[in-house]
Structures are given as C-alpha cells and as structure tokens.
C-alpha cells in the first residue's frame, strides 16, 4: 500500500485532483462558516446581478448569491456521492463475493440479477425510483446508489474468482475455516484495490447522475441548492445572466475531472506494480 501511495504521489495530475477534492470537501463542510449568507436568502432588489466583489458568481433570479449556493450545492453533491457509494458498495460487494466464491447456481442467479440491473439505463432507473419514492435528497441518493450496485458486484466477483483458487484461501478452508471467514478475512482484504478505484469512479458518476436528475427536474427539490438545479434554471437566463449556468457548470465539470483523474491514477498505481517506480518511490524504497 505504501508503494502504491508513493506511485500516486509521483503523478502531479493526481495530486492536483486530490487537492481540489480535499478543498471542495473542506469548503462543503465549512459552508456555514465560509458563506456570507444563507443559500435560501433572497434579495429581490438584486436579481440576476453580474459578477462583483459582493457576489463573485453573481446572483440568481431571487437575488440569492450563486457562489453561496454553489458551496452549499457541493455539500449536497458530495453527500449524495458518499451515500450512493456506500449503498452500492454495501450491496454490490457481498453479491460479488458470494457469486465469485460459491459459483454454480448462486453465481448464475446473482449475476443474472445484476445483469438485469445493468441492462437498465442508470438515468431511467433512477427516474423510475424517484417517481415511486418522490423527490428528495434521500431518494436521489438511494436511486444513484442502486444504479451503482452492478459495477461493485462485477468488480468484486472478478477479483474473488481470481483469488478463490489461491493457496492462502485454500489453506483457510483446509484448516476448517468457514466460507464467510474465507470471504471476509482472506479474499476481501486482497481484493480492495479495484474496489477502491471503483469507489472513486462511482463517486464521479454519482455526482454527475445527481446533477443530471436535478437538471431534468427530478432531483433534489428546490429551493435546496443543487448544481444540477442551478444548471437547469440558469439555462432559462442564459441571455440575461450567462454566468448563472456557466459557473456552477464549471465547478461540476472540475469535480468530475478531478475524480476521474484520481480514479485513473489510482487504477494505474494499484495495478501496475511491476512498472518501474517513479523517482520519489525509488527514493522511498
């Protein structure tokens, strides 16, 4: 793990991406301290104001500060991503472990169910779930989380299949260890690398999906701040206040880019263990 972390540190893009994400998370956590006003605070005498020192991102149609709403929107996006990843991993990883470990009819049954889930377009599935559950942050989180289950299940199953016949797993079984013990204590700790990558990748998908749902008018209900909702409403004012949609869109894009960059770097660092060590890693080694 130390070697992998060093490989990661050798990639400037990954460091930049991680720094941006950490900053975003800190800003989201400290939104109440950093933001000069509340995200719902209206000032109808200052609607659709351009960028200024008082309102660096301008104001929306209610005179609300767009930067403040972007900051609070980050909280909502990151919370959705974290919750969705937690749900997807909590369900997907055990499915993959059981399917890969036991094989046979259990594998067939579980993976066909996963295939069914996978065959449904994520956005449609999420919209259908929200139609049933109603519009709320919890519903969006659950909907995005469910759409992420197949990817965790497949990645974990693939890892389990490759580890299932390894000596250390066979040894656990030979010494009378239960299947649960073998899965949880022997396989899972050795399968975490692709799962970690998957967490990062799904986080980016979850943020994008949550924004897409809000853009389509089925995400977190207004007036709660949400990047997708800001894009949706800002589109209406594209002529009067172009920055209304563009700036939240830029923050969303940067976040997705950062997560993708980090995910790719992680995948490379964790998988390419035979590759020559970067300079910093060689020195550490």
């Amino acid at each position, binding site marked *: 793990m130390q070697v992998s972390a060093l490989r990661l540190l050798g990639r400037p893009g990954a460091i930049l991406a991680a720094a941006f994400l950490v900053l975003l998370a800190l800003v989201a956590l400290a939104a109440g301290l950093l933001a000069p006003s509340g995200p719902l605070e*209206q000032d109808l005498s200052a609607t659709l104001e351009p960028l200024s020192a008082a309102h660096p991102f301008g104001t929306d149609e209610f005179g609300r500060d767009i930067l403040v709403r972007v900051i609070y929107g980050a909280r909502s996006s990151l919370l959705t991503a974290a919750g969705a990843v937690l749900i997807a991993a909590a369900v997907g990883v055990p499915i993959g472990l059981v399917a890969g470990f036991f094989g046979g009819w259990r594998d067939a049954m579980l993976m066909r169910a996963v295939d069914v889930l996978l065959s449904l377009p994520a956005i449609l599935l999420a919209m259908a779930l929200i139609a049933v559950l109603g519009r709320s942050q919890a519903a969006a989180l659950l909907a995005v989380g469910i759409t992420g289950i197949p990817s965790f299940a497949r990645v974990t199953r693939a890892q389990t299949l490759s580890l299932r016949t390894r000596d250390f797993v066979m040894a656990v079984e030979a010494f009378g260890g239960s299947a649960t013990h073998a899965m949880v204590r022997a396989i899972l700790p050795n399968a975490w690398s692709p799962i970690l990558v998957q967490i990062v990748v799904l986080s980016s998908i979850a943020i994008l999906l949550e924004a897409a749902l809000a853009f389509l008018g089925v995400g977190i209900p207004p007036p709660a701040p949400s990047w997708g909702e800001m894009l949706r409403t800002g589109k209406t004012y594209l002529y009067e206040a172009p920055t209304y949609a563009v700036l939240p869109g830029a923050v969303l894009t940067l976040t997705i880019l950062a997560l993708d960059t980090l995910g790719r770097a992680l995948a490379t660092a964790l998988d390419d263990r035979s590759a020559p060590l970067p300079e910093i890693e060689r020195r550490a080694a």
Partner: protein
Amino acid sequence: MRIGRRTMLAGLPLLAAYPATLKAAGLKGGTLRVAILGDINNFDPQKFTQANFALIKNLYDSLIEYSPDGTPIPSLAAGWTIAPDNMSVSVVLREGVVFASGNALDAAAVAATLKKAADPAKGQQVYATMSIVRDWTVDGPRGIRLNFKNRVPDRQITDLLQFISVIDPAGIDTVETKPAGSGPFVLAERALGQRVRMTANPRYWRDRQPVVTEVVLTVFGDNDSASAALESGAVDIVYGGGARAAIRLRNAGFQLIQGPGPLVQVFRINATRGPFRNAKFRQAFNFMMDRAAILRVGYAGVGEVTALPWAPSSPAADRSYDKTYAFNLDRAKALLAESGLSPAEMSAWKLLVNGGDQDSLAISQLVQGTLAKVGINIQLDLKQDSELVDAMLGGKFDALFGGVGNVQKFPTRIGTNSIYRTSGNAILGEPNPFPSYVAAMERVNTTFGSGDDIRAAYDNLNKVLADTSFGIATNTYDIGLLVASPKVGGITPDIDNMLVARTIGFTG
C-alpha cells in the same frame, strides 16, 4: 325581430372595420408558418384547451366574436336580440355560409351543436356554460331561439354565443378526429407530433379572407428551439411561447402581441385545512404577495399586477384593490397576530407546486422566501402530471398557485374555475363554506337595470373576494403570446388569445 338597444345586426361599423383594415394594410398572401409548443390533440371546438387554441378560430367560426375591448361583433350570427325579460335570445344566422363539407349552415346545425354542448358526456368545456340554457327552438332555416332557466344578464348571454362554434351535423360524431367547421381554413394534413397544415377555405364567407393560402403549424419541443426557428426565418410566428423568450425576441426587433384574454395567477387556498381555516390568517396573504416581484421573476414582467381575479378588460375590474392590498409585511404581521395562531401552527402546511412548470416553481420559491421573513417556514410539495391534477381538482392540497381563466368575460364565469365554484366545489366542499361569496355571485347573476346597480353588485363581489381570501390574485399572464416576424401584418387580437390566422398576411 325587434331591433333595440340590445340587438346587433351585421353591417355595424365594428364588423366592417376588419376588412377595411386589411385592404388598407395591403397584405400579401403566401404560406404562414407558425411555431407551436405542443401537439394539437383534438379538433373538437368544444374541447376548449390551450393545446387547441391555434386551431379553433381557423377551422371554425363562432356565433359571435368580441372585439379586444369586449364589444360583441356578429360572426355566424348576423344578428341577435335579447328578450326584454332576459329569458331568451333570438339568433339570426348569416346567409351563404357553408361548411367544409359543402353543407349549408342552418339553424339545425346550431341546434345539433347546442345538443352536443348540453350533453355532459360530449359538451367538454362548453358544458358548464350551457347550464343557463333550458332549451332552444328552431325558427326557420336561419333562426334559433335559446331559452334560459332564469333571467340572464346580457353579457352572460353574449359570452355564451361567443363560446358556441358551430359544428357541421354531418361530422359532429367524429369531430374529435376530423374537423367539421365553416372556418377560414380546412385541414389538409396532420403529421402526429410534427405539424398541422391548413389550406384556405375557397368558399369562406368573409370578404378577402383568409389572406394567406396556407397555414403550417409546426410543433416544437421547447421555447428555445421555436425562438431559434423564428430568428433564423424558418417560421413567421411563435404562438404560445414563454414570456422570457418573447421579451428577448421583442428586444431583437420582433413583434410581441399580447392578447386581451390573459389568465390571472391565483394563490389558491384550501380554506378547509389547517391554519387556512382562520380568516385573519388567510387575509394576511393579501399583503404577503409581492406581486411586482412575482410578475418579474415568473413572467419577465409580461402582464399586470392585480389583487382581484379579473383581467383589465373585465367589467368587474377595480384597480383600487391593487393599492389597498399592496405588498405590506407590517400589515400582514398585524393580521397574523390577530389570527391567534402560533408560529408552529402557521407553518403547518405545504405549498403544492407544479414541478414541471418553471414559472410556478419560481413564484412558489419567491413566496416561500417572503413567508420566511414573517416567520412562516413551509415546504414546497412538488408534484407533476396526473398526480398534480388529482391533487388540484380533488382538493388534496393546502395551497397552490394556479391560473384562472374566463377572467375577461362576465364576472360569474370565474365560477368555471375549480376554486371559485359556488357549488360542487371539490376543494372547499359542499355546501360552499363561504355563503357570502355564493350570495355575491348570485347577486351579480341576477342584477339587471341601471349601470349603478350592476356596478354595486360587482363591488360587493370584489369586497367578498377580499374578505373571504380563499383565492389571492397576484398578476395576469399571457397564454397564447404571439411573437411575429416584422414582415407579418394584420394580426387580430382574440378575446381568448386564440390564434386568428385569417386576417394575417405579409407586408413585404
């Protein structure tokens, strides 16, 4: 037929004004290309919904029309006489009018149309208006008399005649799918979800109309694409688009035409629920509506603020209420204090919102913000489609914004809107919990005689509306907003803001 104060005959100056205007304008024909924002779903002129507003006046003619200021004008009815006791109206039909099928317009066709309108299963949106009619008598090929159940005021009678578009009896059973009118155009093609093409009716009775030989209504998915089509010259008119896009196009040199038949946005209150049972609490909302901001945020300033549910052209309109009930949070707070409700009780309700309508969403958020300033913290309850309609019409809501129509006609026509029904009101229940409102509506319906008496009845209704406060009007807004290329001329405003293509032509 007696010709008196309340008799109108063809040939009066108002009728003559339209052809003269067209001649003076020297308009040229051609193909008029109109962008609409939803597919046409029905050809029945009694299916009086916004989706069909681009069609009705082009495939059909009504018995009479209104000028933009509400003056009745002969159309298929060459004249009409209201009986001295206001218990009937006799209509004389125009000669030489034929339907698209070639059948002649006669009193039997009007009778068949009235029969359909009076049938609850077939009368669509005209059925409620027909409730004043007891029966009718055909008097020769061109004469028909409508008999009323009770005395009916003049304006209500002309509203009824204006609402009746005559349908060819030969096509009345299939009119939903195949038009059967005598209008200036006939249906040439309908491509589902794409376009409706109408060609000029060669046997149309109005002189020099229609001006254009063809009208093509093209369905666009959204405002932006329709606006882009207008700007690129792909269409000549955008009909029924949003106010914000219309303002932008007007600023870019296009013509913006607002008709005399707007809707009024009303904050509908379910007075049978929670804190809304308290009259003082409801009355406070009169002062908590920042009407100017609502108009600006929701409708780009296109419309007018109004504290009463009337269009400016309504005979009951009274602008003094706009000042009396202007946005004033101090007065609102005083009424809230008088209500005796605790802050928790005042916040124990949700504002139902049409989640699919950006304008409703915007003004609801605005009001939510205003209420928070006086300590009323509420949640928005977003619903869409059938779920919303079910909640709206079934009274399963605490409060919501919704447009009301027929606000430019006889005042009691407002009773066609669900919240304003005097009986059978699914929101307020049966009997109507506001007997003073029911009595005020009845007084308007039964007041005849001098203008002072009628005005007093209207004033009483307005006072009752403000006192009962189960509907808080905020602003007018346009349906059927029309944005046209500068080369288009001869646009006739319709009292219901329908598209009247017969007078439209090209100036260059």
